[in-house]
């Protein structure tokens, strides 16, 4: 297990978000986390990132508490948050600059090529399409490094066609990368298509995770073959996580 939540409780003020929640993420592959909006999906990432601290319980990365472990996860936000005054290349090198890595520029060139944006290095974000901007954002996330990647509804701001393209694109990217990905989404189809397993957040406040294996779903059409599972998950989502 690369990441473990042990009896974690967290809330903002007196509003409890996570209540005594435990689950673990195996190394490798994509785990899709779904839940109704506002249930605390992003809070999970904030806890892993160290932006928030659990009120009780422990979060372990490779068996050790995450406190004091630096650079374990790279985070890709919902909106690209590219800096408009930096070119695509410079937005990627940012991650290397912060780590004071000398060969950042060369590495950033390679990352942009990997995400299919060769030739767009010196273009400003305002001249890129939504899908391209997300790809720069993805390249920046890769530049941050770390074995864990946290993707927070990365395609929710895109139109449906671009979104479908980007989903397929992500699947192909992940095959080439040796990473463990946590993907937060509110879209069941996206979770089933991209994920190897789905974790559904149960209850409000969230008290546990419902787990489903969706590794057999590899292409879009498979979702419909797994219609029964899809319906079950959808029902569970509506009923606060009870199957």
């Amino acid at each position: 297990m690369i990441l473990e939540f042990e009896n974690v409780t967290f809330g903002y003020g007196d509003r409890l978000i996570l209540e005594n929640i435990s689950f673990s993420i195996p190394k490798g592959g994509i785990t899709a986390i779904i839940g109704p909006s506002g249930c605390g999906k992003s809070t999970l990432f904030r806890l892993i990132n160290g932006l928030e601290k659990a009120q009780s319980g422990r979060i372990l990365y490779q068996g050790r508490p995450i406190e004091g472990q630096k650079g374990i996860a790279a985070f890709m936000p919902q909106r690209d948050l590219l800096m408009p005054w930096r070119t695509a290349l410079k937005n990627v090198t940012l991650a290397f600059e912060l780590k004071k890595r000398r060969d950042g520029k060369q590495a950033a060139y390679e990352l942009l090529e990997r995400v299919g944006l060769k030739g767009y290095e010196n273009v400003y974000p305002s001249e890129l399409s939504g899908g391209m901007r997300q790809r720069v954002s993805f390249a920046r996330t890769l530049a941050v490094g770390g074995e864990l990647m946290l993707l927070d509804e990365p395609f929710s701001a895109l139109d449906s066609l671009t979104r479908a393209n980007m989903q397929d694109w992500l699947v192909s990217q992940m095959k080439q990368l040796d990473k463990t990905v946590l993907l937060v989404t509110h879209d069941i189809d996206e979770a089933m298509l991209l994920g190897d397993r789905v974790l559904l957040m149960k209850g409000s406040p969230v008290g546990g995770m419902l787990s489903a294996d969706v590794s057999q779903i590899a292409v879009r059409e498979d979702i419909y073959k797994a219609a029964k599972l899809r319906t079950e998950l959808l029902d569970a989502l509506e009923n606060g996580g009870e199957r």
Partner: protein
Amino acid sequence: MKKFRKHLPAYITAAALLILWQVIAMLINAAYILPSPVQIAVRIWELREPLFTVHTPYTMLVTLLGLLISVVLGIALAALMDRFETAERALYPVIVTTQTIPITAIAPLFVLWLGYGIWSKVLVSVIITFFPITVSLHDGLRSSKRESEELLQTMGASRTAIFFKLKLPGALPSFFSAIKMAVPLSIIGAAMGEWLGSQSGLGYFSKRMMTQLDGAGVFAPVVILAVCAMLVVAVISFFERKLLKWRKEM
């Protein structure tokens, strides 16, 4: 050429106003009350020697010193207020209050404190200009989004790195707007300081012409002040375009 076309309506308006002015001045026919544009132009030419070799350089020196000090002070104050909330609460109301002081009323005191030399004028200029610079820059620094800051945090950025990589570049557009606003103000401040007590400078020169009932002579330095303000703003705009290339593409 395209630029000329774009600004054509403004040129026409300006020309029409000048012609109107010329006609009214000719009708009144009393240069000590309202000199005509032509008379002013002639006077500038006649007075070119003292105007351009002594008084304009002096006023520009006051302006640039005032502007420089204001920029340094503005950046320091804005950064301080951005970094420490206590500093913001302690300073912001005071900074706003400085703007309610009628500078013209107390500027003679500055002459008393700092003498007839250049620094009393610089002080007037600074008091007038540091406010827009500080406030705009402060707003600019705060305009960076919280989620961007947090993203940088997750990337391991220190507070200093967040300031220099995110906040400062994000504040540059408001910084330039502030400077462009501050230039005319600092020139007004310089002239006002000279008017109140000086031995050289365009403000002083204008006042001296006033005592001689030389209407065109009063206007001559005023015209030069306006032209100087436009030139300085043009220089700043040039740097703005260079530095903020990314804004063009938006």
